[in-house]
C-alpha cells in the first residue's frame, strides 16, 4: 500500500505542476495588450528579426493551446524567458540568486522548526494558563506584523541605533568574497579556511534569519499547539499516564511522537511562509537572493521575471510538499504498513 500511496502522491504532484504552468501561462495571456510588448524591451521591439524570432519561439501565431504546449516545452527545457531588467535568461538569474536565499532560509527554517515545536508544546502543556496566554499573545503579534516593516525596524535598531550589526548585503565591502563553490558565502569562506570572512558572513545573515524566523515561528507555534492539544486530549495519552510513566516519557515518547506527524505536514507551509518572507524582506537587507530579484522585477513590472519566480517557487513548493507527504507516509505506521 505504501507504493500505492507514493504513486498517488506522485500523480497528484504531476497534475499540480501541470496546473501551475497553466496558471503561469494564463497569466502571461492576461498581460494587457500584446504579450510581446510586455515581455520584450522597447529596443527589442524595434528589431524585426528579434520580433520574428520571438513570435516563432513562443508560437504566437498558433492557436492558444498550441501556444501552451510550446510554452510547456520551453519551460521544460528551462526556458523561462528573458528578464527585461537584467537582459539575462530568467533561469540563469534564478540560479544565481537561489543560493543566497537558501543561506538565510535554511537556517531560519531549522530554527523555526525547533523553536516552533518547543514553544508550541510548552503552550499546549500550559493550556489556558499564564504561559499559554503569553505565547498566544506573542504569536498573534508575530502574525500581525508586516514582515518588511519588522525587517526595517530590526535594521534600524541593530544597525542604525546600536551599531552591532552590518547594514546589509552578504559580506562587508572590504572583504574579498571567497571563490564560489556552494554559493553560500559562509560555507565557501570556511572551505577556503578564511574564518574571518566566514564570521563576517554569519553576522550578515543574523538579522535576515531573525526576521524570517520570527515570522514563521508564530505560525508554527499556533499549529503545533493545537496539534499537541489534540494529542494531549487523546485517550492514548491518558492511558500512558494511567500506566504511571514519568511525565517526561509521556511527553516525548507519546505526545511528541503523535503530535509531530501533523507538524511534519505543516513544515511545507512553513516553507511557503519562508519564501514569501524572503520576497518582502531581502530588499530591506540588500540581500541578493530570489526575494530581492522578485521585488525588483515586480517593482519594474518585469513580467517574465515575476512569472518565472512564481513558477519556480510554486514548483519548489509543490515538490517540498510531496517530500513532506512522503516523510509523513514513512513515519506513520498506519500508512507505512497498511
Amino acid at each position, binding site marked *: 500500500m505504501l507504493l500505492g500511496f507514493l504513486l498517488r502522491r506522485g500523480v497528484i504532484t504531476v497534475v499540480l505542476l501541470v496546473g501551475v504552468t497553466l496558471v503561469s501561462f494564463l497569466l502571461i495571456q492576461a498581460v494587457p495588450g500584446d504579450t510581446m510588448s510586455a515581455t520584450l524591451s522597447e529596443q527589442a521591439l524595434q528589431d524585426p528579426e528579434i520580433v520574428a524570432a520571438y513570435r516563432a519561439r513562443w508560437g504566437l501565431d498558433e492557436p492558444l493551446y498550441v501556444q501552451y504546449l510550446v510554452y510547456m516545452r520551453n519551460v521544460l527545457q528551462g526556458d523561462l524567458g528573458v528578464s527585461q531588467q537584467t537582459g539575462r535568461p530568467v533561469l540563469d538569474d534564478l540560479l544565481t540568486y537561489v543560493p543566497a536565499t537558501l543561506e538565510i532560509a535554511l537556517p531560519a527554517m531549522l530554527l523555526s522548526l525547533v523553536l516552533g515545536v518547543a514553544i508550541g508544546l510548552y503552550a499546549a502543556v500550559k493550556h489556558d494558563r499564564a504561559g499559554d496566554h503569553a505565547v498566544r499573545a506573542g504569536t498573534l503579534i508575530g502574525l500581525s506584523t508586516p514582515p518588511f516593516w519588522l525587517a526595517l525596524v530590526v535594521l534600524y535598531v541593530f544597525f542604525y541605533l546600536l551599531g552591532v550589526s552590518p547594514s546589509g548585503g552578504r559580506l562587508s565591502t572590504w572583504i574579498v568574497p571567497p571563490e564560489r563553490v556552494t554559493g553560500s558565502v559562509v560555507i565557501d569562506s570556511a572551505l577556503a579556511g578564511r574564518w574571518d570572512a566566514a564570521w563576517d558572513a554569519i553576522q550578515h545573515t543574523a538579522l535576515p534569519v531573525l526576521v524570517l524566523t520570527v515570522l514563521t515561528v508564530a505560525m508554527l507555534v499556533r499549529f503545533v499547539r493545537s496539534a499537541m492539544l489534540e494529542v494531549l486530549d487523546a*485517550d*492514548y495519552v491518558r492511558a500512558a*499516564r494511567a500506566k*504511571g510513566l514519568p511525565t517526561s516519557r509521556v511527553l516525548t515518547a507519546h505526545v511528541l511522537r503523535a503530535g509531530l506527524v501533523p507538524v511534519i505536514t505543516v513544515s511545507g507551509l512553513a516553507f511557503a511562509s519562508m519564501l514569501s518572507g524572503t520576497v518582502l524582506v531581502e530588499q530591506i537587507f540588500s540581500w541578493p537572493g530570489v526575494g530581492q530579484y522578485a521585488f525588483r522585477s515586480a517593482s519594474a513590472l518585469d513580467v517574465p521575471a515575476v512569472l518565472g519566480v512564481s513558477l519556480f517557487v510554486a514548483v519548489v513548493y509543490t515538490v517540498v510538499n510531496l517530500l513532506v507527504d512522503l516523510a509523513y507516509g514513512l513515519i506513520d505506521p*498506519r500508512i507505512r504498513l497498511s
Partner: protein
Amino acid sequence: MSQILSIENLAVTLQGDQRVIEDISLEVPEGEIVGIAGESGSGKSLTAAALLGLLPDRSQTSGHAWWRGGAEPRDLLTLDQRSWNRVRGREIAMVFQDATAALHPMLTVGTQITEHMRVHLQLSRRDARRRAVELLDRVRIPDPEASLRSYPHQFSGGMRQRVAIAAALACQPRLLIADEPTTALDVTVQAGILRLLEELRAETGLSVLFITHDLAVLAALTTQAYVFREGRVIESGATEELLFHPRHEYTKTLVAARPQADDWDEPEQVAR
C-alpha cells in the same frame, strides 16, 4: 474481608462549576469483582478517572478514596505527582472504554506493554519482552512474539482490547479498573475476556472494578454491584439481589429494559 478501596462521598466538579459527580460511596473488597452499572453520562468513567487522578484540567474533588493496596493506606484524591507515578500502573491499572483510542497508533504493541514494566519493575528490555509474550499468550493473542512488533492498527478490535488488558496487567496491579472493556466486542470475545478476568481474580487475588452497561455481564461476573444515576449511587448490594429484586424504580426499569439474547449479535467491529 478487607476493603482494598473505599470511596467515601466522592464529588467532582468540572471546570465551569459543572457538577458531574454528586455523591458516590463505594467499596471494593480485596480479591473480588465489583460492578458499576448505569446509564450513559451517569459518571462511571469520571469516577474511574478520579481514582487515577486523570480528571480533566481544573476539576475539583471532595470526599475520600482510601486505597489500601499499597504499603500504607492513602487517600487517592490527595496524592502528589510522585506518589501517583507509583500507584498508577503499578498498584492500580486501568483498561479504557475504547481500546482503539487508548493504544498509541505509532508505538508497537511491544513498547506499549513493556514500557511501564521497565519503569515500575526495573526489568531489562529482554525480561520485559519475555514477560510481555507471556501476557499476550495469557490474553490469547496468537503468535505473541510477532505481535510485539506489530502496531495496533494491525489487530482487530477485540484483539486490541486484549492487548490493552495485557498492558494493564503487566505490572501485576492489585486493582484493575475496567471501563466497559467488552461493550464494543462480540459475544464470544466478550465471554473470553470475562473468563480471563475471573481466572485472574481466582488465581492472583486481583480485585476488579468493572464498569458496564450490560446487566447480563454484571450478573455473570460480579458479586457486588452499584447502580449510578446522575452522579449518585442509587442502589447497591449483592448483584443477584439487586438484579432479581430491584428496589429502586430506576433499577427496575433498567432490568426490564435488558436486551434479550438475540439482540446481542453485534458484529465484531471491522479492523482497518
